[in-house]
């Protein structure tokens, strides 16, 4: 006994020091939290305090009394409900056997881009952020893990015999969270809202397929002329200007807005920022939104739709590109699911050193990075010059070094997994790295060893991130080494660059494009004369035919593949790489979307298209968290 006392007395000075440090640490954390609430939310204070206190025995007596004083905002909002949760969701769905209790089905993530201004998709795409409207409102259709369209609000859809009218059957019994039925009238209202010039929808171009959409949007025609109509409460029709086989794919970009709520307001999208007015048609509803801190969605008990999730609460913290990795490492968020573009090869190398802890996942994104020629400007009017440059670049070597883990060497515009992707183009002669062949082509074009060529300037936008800068330096070095051609880099401010580019004044540019909807027309229309700097009549004809094709899907895809072959063959552009997105998902997250799909790719992407949040759950492996 006395020995113990003595021991305690002996170490007390050290304890004292530790306690002091702990208190300082906690106070510091508290101050830090108050000062920059954007990075870490007040509710995390107890957790942060716990990790700050090294020896439990020493800290236990000090911390609880100190922590509230240091972080007064850290009031526990809910009692800890670790072991008391149910094994059924609020909608009656049974949780898998290895799942944590329902109260613990809390998914935390962080947004690293700009915080949305509101969450109404039909009012603005960029203003509503990329995914937020999709948690609490639903579109007509969604994409599943295998990139197939699945019905959501629409039960089914078909093309009428005129080839122009799409009819969507709306699911019966759907309700908004305030009990008002969701009908085809809401759908009609949403599509009218996007065309309304007063709303100034920023993606109006996207729906220009709809009859009279452009005219109504520019105020030249009345709203009644718009080619959308609620035939009855459960039938919605959209009439196209010309056959548009991809129209149902486009509808997944927009969630349906509540007509009955918006009609009582001034028409602004601000109804979606307040939990009182933000009625939900999706399986979650807005619970709170602290600007600059976090957005919280809770399960919607009145959900009548088909996508029943396991996750009860979604917490979206507002962060920055710099804070997402540290937050993930510290266990404050469960995944780095959004805008993973800031992840560098360094982060990935670090994660791969301990993959079980980090949960590294990657997929080839639906987009491409490419060097684009203006084939209306010398010397790029000469196909051989373009092909020579294409053949002088060793894409595989660059993708394996500077682009490691973040790029897959590309050989076409359409990435693997995208409809009409053509693996045969890999062996297209233009895609083969061949310095000798490149030199010969250049000589055939009349520029032996690059003599007689005008100065070549490569244009791109600034700021350059490490990946783009590395690729550009690599490409420049390869062209110099293999063809003896010097290229100069010119970076313009992003808005200036795109404004100038639209005037077709740049002969040679480094660019990228990310898909908007899941149809080849999206990525191949860009190369039609007048859009990008490429111009080829045969290409235009094939694309026009395919875009408005009425007939079998396979025949349509063949047309796109023929067109893309022309583009690749004559090097209208050099497709450098398809971006590979890497995300970290803690291994305690499980779900169908986190497994490889039929296509062999994981479709866990945290964006609007995926069903990840619907089939994902949190296993018992995660220590209980409090919110």
């Amino acid at each position, binding site marked *: 006994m006395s020995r113990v006392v003595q021991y305690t007395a002996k170490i007390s000075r050290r304890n004292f020091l530790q306690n002091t440090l702990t208190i300082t640490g906690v106070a510091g954390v508290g101050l830090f939290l108050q000062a920059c609430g954007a990075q870490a939310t007040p509710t995390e204070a107890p957790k942060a305090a716990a990790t700050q206190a090294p020896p439990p025995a020493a800290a236990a007596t000090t911390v609880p009394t100190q922590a509230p004083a240091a972080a007064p905002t850290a009031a526990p909002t809910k009692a800890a409900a670790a072991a008391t949760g149910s094994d059924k969701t609020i909608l009656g769905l049974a949780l898998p056997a290895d799942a944590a209790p329902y109260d613990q089905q809390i998914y935390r993530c962080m947004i690293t881009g700009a915080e949305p201004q509101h969450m109404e998709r039909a009012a603005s795409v960029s203003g509503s952020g990329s995914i937020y409207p999709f948690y609490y409102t639903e579109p007509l259709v969604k994409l599943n893990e295998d990139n197939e369209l699945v019905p959501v609000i629409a039960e089914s859809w078909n093309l009428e015999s005129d080839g122009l009218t799409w009819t969507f059957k709306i699911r019966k019994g759907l309700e908004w969270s305030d009990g008002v039925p969701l009908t085809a009238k809401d759908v009609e209202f949403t599509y009218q809202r996007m065309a309304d010039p007063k709303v100034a929808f920023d993606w109006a171009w996207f729906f220009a397929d709809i009859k009279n959409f452009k005219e109504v949007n520019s105020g030249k025609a009345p709203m009644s002329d718009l080619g959308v109509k609620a035939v009855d409460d459960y039938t919605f029709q959209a009439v196209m200007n010309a056959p548009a086989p991809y129209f149902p794919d486009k509808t997944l970009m927009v969630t349906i807005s509540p007509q009955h709520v918006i009609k009582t307001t001034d028409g602004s999208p601000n109804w979606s920022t307040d939990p009182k007015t933000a009625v939900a048609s999706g399986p979650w509803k807005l619970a709170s939104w602290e600007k600059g801190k976090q957005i919280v969605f809770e399960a919607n008990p009145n959900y009548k739709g088909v996508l029943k999730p396991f996750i009860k609460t979604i917490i979206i913290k507002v962060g920055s590109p710099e804070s997402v990795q540290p937050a993930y490492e510290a266990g404050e968020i469960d995944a780095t699911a959004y805008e993973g573009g800031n992840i*560098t*090869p360094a982060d990935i*190398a670090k994660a791969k050193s301990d993959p079980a802890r980090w949960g590294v996942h990657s997929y080839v994104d639906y987009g491409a990075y490419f060097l684009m020629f203006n084939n209306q400007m010398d010397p790029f009017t000469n196909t051989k010059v373009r092909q020579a440059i294409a053949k002088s670049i060793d894409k595989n070597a660059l993708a394996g*070094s500077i682009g*490691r883990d973040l790029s897959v060497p590309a050989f076409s515009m359409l990435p693997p997994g995208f409809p009409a992707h053509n693996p045969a183009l890999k062996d297209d002669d233009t895609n083969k790295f061949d310095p000798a062949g490149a030199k010969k082509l250049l000589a055939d074009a009349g520029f032996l060893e690059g003599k007689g060529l005008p100065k070549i300037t490569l244009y791109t936008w600034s700021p350059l991130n*490490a990946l783009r*800068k590395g690729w550009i*330096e690599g490409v*420049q070095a390869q062209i110099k080494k293999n063809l003896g051609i010097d290229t100069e880099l*010119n970076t313009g401010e992003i808005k200036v660059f795109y404004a100038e580019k639209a005037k077709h004044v740049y002969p040679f540019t480094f660019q990228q494009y990310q898909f908007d909807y899941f149809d080849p027309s999206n990525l191949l229309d860009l190369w039609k004369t007048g859009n990008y700097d490429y111009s080829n009549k045969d290409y235009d004809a094939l694309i026009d035919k395919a875009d408005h094709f009425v007939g079998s899907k396979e025949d349509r895809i063949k047309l796109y593949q023929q067109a893309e072959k022309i583009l690749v063959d004559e090097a209208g552009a050099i497709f450098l790489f398809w971006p590979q997105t890497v995300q970290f998902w803690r291994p305690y997250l499980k779900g169908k979307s986190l497994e490889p799909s039929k296509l062999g790719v994981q479709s866990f992407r945290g964006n609007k298209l995926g069903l990840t949040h619907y089939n994902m759950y949190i296993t018992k492996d995660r220590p209980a968290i409090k919110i």
Partner: protein
Amino acid sequence: MTIVQTAQETIFTEKPPAQRGLYQDAWRRFKKNRLALIGFGVLLLITLGAIAAPLISFGGYNNQVYADAYLFPSPQHLMGTDGLGREIWNRVLYGARISLLVGLVSQALAYAVGIPLGAIAGFRGGQADYFIMRFVDAMSAFPSLLFAILVMSVLGPGVWQVLLAISLTRWIEGCRMTRAQLLQLRQSEYVIAAQAMGASSGRIIVTHMLPNALSPLIVGLTLGIPGAIFSEAGLSFLGLGINPPIPSWGQMVGESVQYLSYYWYMTVFPALAIALMMLGFTWAGDGLRDALDPRDSR
């Protein structure tokens, strides 16, 4: 009485000390300052490295060996390699050239503009002084880095653009310093004497006043050069500086900072180089200031 006499005798009989000019004195004091010598040595090493870069680097600053990408420092790769398989060692060596070039040339440019303007303002006084100084005030109202960013975004990236952007705000200091010195020296007897003898203003400024105003200008130089280098590093860090693939330290730090969580060496070595050069200039500059200050008679 006798004591006083003795003292006088001593004074007169002792050989007068050898005449030492300001610069000999300064050199003697500088030699005694160990920190200043170390700083000077560091600068000398960096300069030698920059000059001898082609001899002591292996393959130049843009030799891309893709198979050797992302290698940590080792005997084969002294400072490791970057994502394109280029030796960091080579790039640090060649980066020193840019840093020194920017530092020396932009400061020279700044003085070439600043000193004549300051001299006119300080010597002439009156309206010339008023207009020049108001212009200086207006220019110094711009934060220098923001002004440089503005100039760079108009001119686009490149070595000469960087030099111009940096010099555009740096001449102010030299101008102010020269003016202050000349205002003071204008009252001194030898200037008045020269004026009385009919010397021209230009002659008085160049042969009588500037040599006497030199020491603060030299000190200003040793502090201005690292300032200019730092500005370049800042601009390049922001992606507005030197055009790739020519390396500059600021640019190397700027792009590799994204890799810091794992490939630490990509950031650490160029950052270390910047720090060493800054330290060298600061120590040497401090030593020079102490050495050139006649009031300080250590």
